[in-house]
């Protein structure tokens, strides 16, 4: 069981990539490669990779440039624990993308994959826009449906003489106030979600 994650770089400079990986993670390609399943298999050679890193419980290897995609192979020592592999991928993803940000290298389209026999898992990252969309989806009823319904109900009640105009106006006022409350709530929610929690550098995996 192993994993891979990739990000698209706006400008891919292979020399710069090797330099920054060496600066941040040290010159560990030989160590990482020699512990990897690739060395045992022999099918991919050390020179198929440009950087690597290894700890006691996991390693990563950076594939040589292919287009503008930076691809990283992740292999844990514990081959049985799926959650451990997910955490390991997220740990390296966070580290690598923070490194890219520090070096002002623009990246996008993060994706991850875990190879479990017959059931590949795909990891995606929720962007800020995805988070905003999710908040709007969750608040849709309060923001749009309830206010429209209240206003419509008040107009119909006045039209059919169920309510007097003054009572209808009170109901409309209530609807406007509750709508304003919902929008203020939404603004606060957006502030909390986007400013304080920030953009999570984490993949969510699904089959």
């Amino acid at each position, binding site marked *: 069981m*192993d*994993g891979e994650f990739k990000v698209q770089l706006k400008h891919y400079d292979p020399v710069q990539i090797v330099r920054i990986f060496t600066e941040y993670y040290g010159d560990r390609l030989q160590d990482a490669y020699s512990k990897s399943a690739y060395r045992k298999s022999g*099918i*991919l050679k050390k020179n198929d990779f440009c950087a690597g890193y290894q700890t006691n419980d996991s390693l990563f290897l950076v594939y040589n440039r292919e287009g503008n995609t930076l691809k990283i*192979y992740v292999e844990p020592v514990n081959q049985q624990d799926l959650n451990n592999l997910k955490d390991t991928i997220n740990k390296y993803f966070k580290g690598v993308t923070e490194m890219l940000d520090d070096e002002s290298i623009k990246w996008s389209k993060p*994706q991850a994959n875990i190879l479990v*026999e017959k059931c590949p898992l795909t990891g995606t990252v929720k962007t800020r826009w995805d988070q905003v969309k999710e908040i709007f989806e969750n608040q849709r009823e309060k923001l749009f449906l309830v206010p429209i319904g209240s206003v419509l109900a008040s107009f119909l009640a006045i039209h059919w003489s169920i309510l007097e105009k003054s009572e209808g106006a009170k109901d409309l006022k209530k609807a406007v106030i509750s709508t304003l409350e919902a929008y203020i709530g939404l603004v606060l929610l957006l502030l909390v979600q986007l400013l304080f929690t920030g953009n999570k550098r984490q993949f969510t995996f699904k089959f």
Partner: protein
Amino acid sequence: MTDHAFNGNEDIFVQQLTAKLNTLRNVQLEKSTAEDGPDLKVVNHHSGKQLFIEFKNAKEYGELPISSILPIAKLAKQNGKTQKILLVSFSHLSDLLSSKLKELNVQALTQPTVDQVVEQVRMALA
């Protein structure tokens, strides 16, 4: 002949492929349950030739991760270089993965139709 393209459902594709392969003369199919065995073994009793078929799908990731090569390399190593292996990939193959598959003498078909796979099997076993 109706040609069945891959429509996102790997199981249906494999079912349709299996059904078509079963109609070939002198051909026997064996599905493997072994973890490191091929997904499908096709044997031609007449010529004695056999072909291993591997199915791979990276789904939303879009392309097969390069480490997909590891179990295929293991399979190739276990069975010798003369053993023919056909990789049916439902996802894109990167250049590096494609070149490594060639090194292993593994033929790869990317998002093929059922008939293309059948034709490839027919040629391999002829």
